[in-house]
């Protein structure tokens, strides 16, 4: 309603580089889209949690979890598809910046989901932002991937003893909250999700390194008030 304070040119600060059309086409896609992109989620947040929150803006058609392309585990983003444009608009207006699973999440219009967009685009398999982060974020696998590698390299030189833990991506077959994406029982699902990826990717050293990491005892640190200032970090990634 209020047109006075809105800058209509700022539809979205983020321009998806994978979008093949022109800027105008991109904006037109955003204006008509029924899909929203949800960012800064915890790796632990389930589809059902997202469903409960996003259904408050309207009936949901589909949720597509963003997955780490190596581990096939959630890597902190998702797409929510609605049936109507107004519902998608309400999700952007009212849910962006509020908390889901104790984290401020970001909700933006998205130009539309396509097969392949569910995978993280970072070198290590997750989102790009998690490559370069230098902060410690327990909801997103601890330190950024680059810092983790650094720490590991150090560990090879110095023996830190028993207490040291790198912050490996959390395992999902833990009893308390089943994630299931990497569950071996679910071969059918696995194959469907991984097929397009494995065909074009040669195995690289990243995944082998991940496998070497020690399993973490309790990745789910949930201290009261551990809200991190995510917006800055997010923006950095977006500008990149």
């Amino acid at each position: 309603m209020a047109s006075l304070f809105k800058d209509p040119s700022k539809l979205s600060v983020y321009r998806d580089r994978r979008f093949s059309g022109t800027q105008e086409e991109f904006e037109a896609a955003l204006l008509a889209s029924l899909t929203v992109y949800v960012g800064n989620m915890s790796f632990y947040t389930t589809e059902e949690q997202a469903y409960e929150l996003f259904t408050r803006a309207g009936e949901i058609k589909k949720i597509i979890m963003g997955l780490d392309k190596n581990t096939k585990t959630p890597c902190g983003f998702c797409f929510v598809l609605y049936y109507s444009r107004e519902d998608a608009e309400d999700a952007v207006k009212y849910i962006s910046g509020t908390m889901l699973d104790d984290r401020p999440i970001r909700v933006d219009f998205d130009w539309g989901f396509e097969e392949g967009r569910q995978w993280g685009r970072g070198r290590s398999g997750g989102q790009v932002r998690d490559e370069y982060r230098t902060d410690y974020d327990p909801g997103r696998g601890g330190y950024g991937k680059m810092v983790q590698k650094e720490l590991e390299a150090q560990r090879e030189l110095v023996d830190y003893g028993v207490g040291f833990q790198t912050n490996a991506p959390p395992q999902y077959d833990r009893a308390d909250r089943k994630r299931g994406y990497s569950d071996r029982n679910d071969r059918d699902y696995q194959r469907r999700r991984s097929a397009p990826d494995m065909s074009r990717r040669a195995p690289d050293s990243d995944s082998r390194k991940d496998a070497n990491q020690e399993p973490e005892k309790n990745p789910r640190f949930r201290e009261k008030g551990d809200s991190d200032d995510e917006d800055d970090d997010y923006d950095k990634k977006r500008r990149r």
Partner: protein
Amino acid sequence: MSAGWRTLLLRIGDRCPEYGGSADHKEHIETCYTVLCREYEHSKDDIFEFLLQCAEQLPHKIPFFGVLIGLINLENEGFAKGIVDTAQANLQDALHNENRDRIRILLRFLSGLMCSKVISPDSIIETYETLLSSAATILDEEAGNPSWQPRADFYVYCVLASLPWGGSELFEQVPDELERVLVGIQSYISIRRHFDDIAFSVFETDEGDSPNKKDFMEDLWERIQVLSRNGWKVKSVPKPHLSFEAQLVVGKSHRFPPVSCPPPTFTLSASEILKGQEKHEADLKYPQRLRRLHIFPTNKAENMQPVDRFVVEEYILDVLLFFNGCRKECAFYLVSLPVPFRYEYLMAETIFSQLLLLPNPPFRPIYYTLVIIDLCKALPAAFPSVVVAAVHALFDRISNMDTECRTRLILWFSHHLSNFQFIWPWQEWASVKGLPKWAPQRVFVQEVLEREVRLSYFEKIKQSIEDATELEGLLPPKAGPNFRYHTDDSKESTEGHRLSKELVGMVRGRKTTRDIISWVEEQIVPANGAKFAIDVVSQTLLDIGSKSFTHLITVLERYGQIISKLCPDEEMQLLLMDEVSAYWKNSTQMTAIAIDRMMGYRLISNLAIVKWVFSPANVDQFHVSDRPWEILRNTVSKTYNRVSDLRKEIQTLRKSIQVAKEASAKASRELEEAKSVLEIVEGQPAPSETPGRLRRLQGFADRAKEEEVATEESLEAKEALLARGLEEGKELLRLLFKSFVDVLTERLPPISANGDVPNLRAGDQDVTFAAADPEVATMEIDNENGADNDSQLNGKKTKVGYSIGELEQWCLCTLGYLKSFSRQYATEIWSHIAMLDEEVFVGNIHPLIRKAAFSGLCRPISERV
């Protein structure tokens, strides 16, 4: 001065850097006016447009914009006259398009302009009188149409609502005329019908209507009368024009040209049904903006003049309206309204009244969740405690709260807490564990915990109530599937286990749906029967899809046909839902989602779902859990969502048909023209058109025609779908109401021999008595042991804290939902009211059922019994 004139206009009156942090209104106006003068020559037209926009979208700053226009008027009469004329055109437009907010705000704008001598007072009086006489005409049986009283009320309301801004000047300058207007309003109030909004009140008052309660018109009228007795002094409206009076007084006042109101809508029919439909339409078009909710005791809330309360409410509602979607500004303006007193309690009451507004708030409830979160952050010292007090006050009265409002409150509260680390003084509510399991306070706590767990996870919420371990019993079960054919290596024996494992193997082996269907038909059905087949197949498929929402969708998309083959009719679909409910007995959310998706894939019909919800096992849950109601709400709303989506699509298609037709006509015309040119020049060596162009034109014409035909075909298809959807909606309503009537008739206490309607709340009287009873403490301990699994009516136990018996509570709750569904789907119900009258609301239907449904529809309970 670095800020541009636009920013200065936007920020006028705000304590902000653009004005050097000063709060002096005079200084703001002078600064802004200086800059406007400097820019006037370059940007006259832009300033004109922008000022009007500001006045309409920042209505709480109207007095400032009024003074600015007044000052410009001193130098450039033409500019100000232009503003006046445009405002008149806009008002005229708004009256005819029934744009309520615009009408209301433009009338306030006129007052602002009048205060600054831009508009003459008598032309405002004239506008008021036009509105009043139109209102009076609408109420006239002969010349008007009393069904449209909501419009008449709205006009008079707008006049009254503008008086806090201009009353004092009108009183000074044209006292007799103002008096005439007030007399006119008085006589309007005396002839209008009192608006009985029992259907829309958040709290159910005691049995019977409350004749003394003032409706919104009578209330505002009284506030304005007090105002006039107090010499039209309003603290909450800034009067910046007073500082500029010496200058403004020489300004030329322009006449506000007369406006006309749209003529009353006539109907020739006198049928009761048509009148009801019409009144419903009018109510929808002119809904009440606010239903004041008194949450706090009077000694706690701010003490202010009646008119100030009204003005602050107007400010708050306008900020909520115009800053929807602009979080930062919305919170900023809410906390910095131009009033010289505190208003946190009033603000909380106003926002809660919107969240709980019936039948629907202007925006989605989640918007108010966001506003409350932002206010807690903007006023960290003041607002959170007000919210806590509001929650406690609402919680205390929850048993009288409207069912729909309870649901909204549960959704809001759980979401709110999820934004504040789930911190809440739960120990204060720990005692609800001792209440019978149908006590509304206990159900409220249980449902809030359920929603919290959905937004978070079990352990987290369990930890959040560690100060009130008693409440752990109210937590939902830890979510997880309950698979009947779970294979354990140690013991795997039954036929079901074997078949289930085989089915899993077939799915893993990517057998086609057809193969699996024939396997089911050959291996399971002949030996074990169809019911057993549903059991094994649905349990197994649910288990394969149990990992997440997406897994579920995938399984249903791939193997839904197997289920649909097994469940061709309602009876089998009911069994299927029993299986879903058994598999997901520990997760209400997944039960609801699974049923919702199965309806989406048309594996289950909406009628089957209604039947299932009204089946005995679920009916027993009606008063103790939201579980069946959530499923019912989903089903009804999904049915109507599809219909409204189809309506929208059809509208779009109609438009594109128009476009396609024009394009096709144009293409064939061009082709014909090109051809005809050729015909005339036949025989000559130089044809005007090359065959290539003709072929191209022919191609265009063909394609355009195809496009037109294709659009027409898809329109036809959609219209067929819509017709089917409408028919389904009608059947759904029929079944829904019949089911309500059946279960209620079975359980409602009968009317006494002398015709008295039973009072379901009769047991409620000794609640306060019980609280004062010293024995309560010991009795509560007794209760700890028994109340949980003891669902039998037990007078002794239920007396503690909550003394309405189980059966009575069940009736109150179910009647509440009946009312709530009737209100929510009033438009759909009104369009099938004849059918319902004939089949449902017949003869000796229990008066409480009729009352619940009719009050939801705002329909008078007619004499015919």
